[in-house]
């Protein structure tokens, strides 16, 4: 009996110890990735990264055209996807609550949320690039917008649902129609929650490479014309990292560092706002 108990205790200690080791392994991997990224990325950070365009192999240059392109296409993608996403979430949480159609839309949205982003690139290629006859920044922005949509729908609906229905009922009791209640009561109450959702969507698309490969393509030179192929950080990183040239590889690491820093800061910011929001929420209830 005591031998049996000892065996059970040893099993427990070994198994739980292994779970601790698994956690260490996960944390160590994150640390290893960040360590490499910081040490190799920072080595290449100079002023010229932010002032010069992408160089030819062997000569010096920077990433300014890629940074510009990424900012422009990401913001455009957000401008396309976020408003539609918030409106769709409004339908799911306000007008369509409890309807069968909402259940179907919510399910399809969750599936689209995890769908491979390269397929979205192919979709925009056949729909936009083939029709226009050439690659363009607009096509890139549209594919990013399509990726923003399901992310925003999911988070915005969650946030709108957190708003207590007593607020809606109070507004309706004052004679406000549903749209008035939504725009003047529900949206303001969910403001920081909606902002969190948009920040998360922004973080999601900042590093997206696959959908840009054959929509925005790439551009060696400075270009501000949305109708033309545009350089962007992810595709430049892909092209430069897989090249045999040392200066290109170094710029790729610097670009990867810039994107990762941006995304990590956004994620942490979104988390802080969301925590603050839920704290405020419990005060209302």
């Amino acid at each position, binding site marked *: 009996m005591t031998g049996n108990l000892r065996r*059970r205790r040893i*099993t427990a200690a070994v*198994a*739980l110890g292994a*779970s*601790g*080791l*698994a*956690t260490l392994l*996960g944390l160590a*991997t*994150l640390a290893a*990735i960040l360590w490499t*990224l910081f040490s*190799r990325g920072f080595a290449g950070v100079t002023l010229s990264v932010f002032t010069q365009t992408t160089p030819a192999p062997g000569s010096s240059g920077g990433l300014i055209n890629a940074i510009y392109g990424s900012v422009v296409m990401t913001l455009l993608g957000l401008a396309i996807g976020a408003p539609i*996403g918030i*409106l*769709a979430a*409004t*339908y*799911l949480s306000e*007008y369509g609550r409890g309807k069968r159609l*909402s259940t179907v*839309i919510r399910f399809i949205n*969750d*599936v*689209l949320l*995890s*769908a*491979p*982003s*390269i*397929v979205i690139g*192919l979709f925009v290629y*056949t*729909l936009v690039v083939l029709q226009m006859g050439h690659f363009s920044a607009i096509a890139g922005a549209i594919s990013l917008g*399509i990726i923003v*949509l399901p992310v925003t729908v999911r988070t915005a609906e969650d946030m709108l649902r957190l708003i207590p229905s007593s607020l809606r009922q109070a507004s309706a009791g004052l004679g406000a*129609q*549903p*749209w*008035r209640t939504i725009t003047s009561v529900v949206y303001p109450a969910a403001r920081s929650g909606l902002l969190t959702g948009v920040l998360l969507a922004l973080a999601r698309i*900042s*590093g*997206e*490479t696959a959908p840009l*490969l*054959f929509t925005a393509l790439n551009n060696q030179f400075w270009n501000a014309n949305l109708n033309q192929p545009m350089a962007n950080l*992810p595709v430049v990183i*892909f092209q430069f*990292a*897989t090249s045999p040239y040392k200066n290109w*590889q170094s710029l790729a*690491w610097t670009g*990867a560092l810039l*994107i*990762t820093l941006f*995304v*990590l800061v956004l994620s*942490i910011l979104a988390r802080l706002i969301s925590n603050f929001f839920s704290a405020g929420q419990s005060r209302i209830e």
Partner: protein
Amino acid sequence: MSAVTIPYKVQLRRAARSERIFRLFATTAALLVLALLAGVLLALLYGGWPALKTFRFGFLTNTIWNPVTEQFGAFAALYGTVITSLIAMILAVPVAFGIAVFLTETCPLWLRTPIGTCIELLAAVPSIVFGIWGLFVLAPVLQHSVQPWLIAVLGDLPVIGKLFRGPPFGIGLLTAGFVLAVMVLPFITSVMREVFLSTPRSLKEAAYGLGATQWEVVWDVVLPNARAGVVGGIMLGLGRALGETMAVTFVVGNAHRISGSLLAPGTTISASIANEFTEAVGKLYTSSLIALGLLLFVLTFIIIAAARLLLLRLEARGAHI
């Protein structure tokens, strides 16, 4: 002031019109989600049609992918996609389970949030960063230490020895599986953590009351209770692994062939599209790549939809996933 000049009935009519317009906008936006799914399917079917018409069912089973003779078969890419994802699952699931157990059972309370946040930040790192890290850091490590060891120890075993033969290239199916494992780890962990937390307290306390050890509570009470959620989480991770593009493209080796060894270079559906699409000449080549995309979309759709259905049932029970 204006309220005095506009008659009450006109105000009501205007409000009703605004209501109709706003409602129409919201409904249209929601329907756009459905239209997007249909649009993606139709566009890929349209783009991939020439290839599907030419090769018919042979597109799925043919292993030859030759742009020069314009012969395209998806089997090698499909094989690589499935094998790399399986390797990722075999590596990631036990680790994710361990982390979820640690974070819900053993970890001191004050450490749970910071460690949980770190694991979730792993999910925020863009896939291209995993790719560049895999190519420059992980692949050389595997090439110089892990793969020679695998070849020496496992290479001579019967049956499974075949999987670990040939020279250590560094890049290949095994390396792609490693990178994918790191990428899907946070997704599987977070679903497992949520379903473990949803175990009723009374069940666990009853087990402790009967004298169960902490591990026995996890293995015999928490895990059976969370079974559907665990399976759902694993399938969600599998869906991600199947469709992941950039991280794999860097390290898989991009060779359209099937070799018995896991150490050999191969390709996946997503890596083939990413690598070849802009350079594809000829209608049939482009169309075959789009048909590959259709295959990937259908495959991931089935897996993810099944996972979501499993998780949906749990969400109805109150778990927030």
